[in-house]
């Protein structure tokens, strides 16, 4: 067994590295173009008043102090400051959520920046909620 330690230890290190590289949110993932692909065709955009656009399993992150009070958003909502999105609690909530995670801010550029940062860090199933489709 001891003579195989010289093989087992490096294999274990590689496995740990691979897991860390692929699951950590502390760094950006490879291939930025693939990560940001949904932003090219607007498939990451949800229009608020479109019926059935938001599932009950969705988690809405309110990125500014404005609250989404209308009944069309019938799912869990939490307020989070945009620069705290990568904090431990928030990232854990994002990862563990079964449904989509939806970003909402009255300022679309804030939602866009947070979306791109999350997407490039490897988060999936993230969307931007907007009041109108606009020019996606």
């Amino acid at each position, binding site marked *: 067994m001891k003579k195989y330690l010289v*093989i087992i230890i490096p294999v274990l290190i590689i496995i740990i*590295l691979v897991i860390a*590289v692929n699951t950590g949110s502390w760094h950006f993932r490879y291939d930025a173009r693939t990560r940001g692909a949904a932003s*090219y065709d607007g498939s990451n955009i949800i229009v608020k008043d479109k019926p059935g656009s938001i599932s009950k399993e969705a988690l809405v992150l309110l990125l500014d102090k404005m609250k989404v009070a209308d009944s069309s958003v019938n799912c869990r909502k939490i307020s989070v400051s*945009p620069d705290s999105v990568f904090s431990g609690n928030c990232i854990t909530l994002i990862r563990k959520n079964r449904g989509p995670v939806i970003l909402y801010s009255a*300022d679309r*550029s*804030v939602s*866009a*920046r947070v979306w791109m940062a999350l997407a490039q860090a490897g988060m999936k199933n993230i969307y931007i909620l907007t009041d109108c489709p606009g020019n996606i």
Partner: protein
Amino acid sequence: MNPRIRLSIILISAGFVLAVLPLKYTRSLGGSPAKLLSASLNDSLAISADQLARFISLEDKDIHLVDLRDKADFMITGIPGAVNVPYHEILEKDPSSFLLAGNARNIFYSSDDLQPGYAMIIAMGLGYRNSYFLRGGINEWTRVVSDTIYRGGTITARENALFESRIKAGRLYNKLCNLPDSLKIKYLNAMKFNPKKLDGGCE
């Protein structure tokens, strides 16, 4: 050392390298996502239409406009001095071919704020921390600058200064928009960013 163990070590080392490095060359953002996002949320990175009008009226050489819309829209209503890089091409091209480093300000704009928001994170992640965006995009520019008119009445010195820079920038903008396509293409080609020209000195 046993040849099998030696071979295993070589294969494991190769696996170690492959596990960490990408298989093919792709562009990836650098740095910490949390720090980058925090830096990008600085309010001073949002340029208003009035600020941009002032830069254009003063012919500020430190600003570099990047129009993220399709070429057709850019040809109709591009802001004077802008280069056109459609958003979906932003990661296909070498960023140094359309972005400036150093003290220059790379200002992204589109029809609204979504694409410039995305582009800012991408540019900053690629090392261009001098990235900004035009708040409200070309729609806000048109509303504030291009369509500005004097409605009469007394205005303050500050309002007068704003009005003058809007008028001057608006004239340049409208002049460019009204050029026939052939002349517009010549003008835009002349304005194209060429990194070699920045080297300075004599050839």
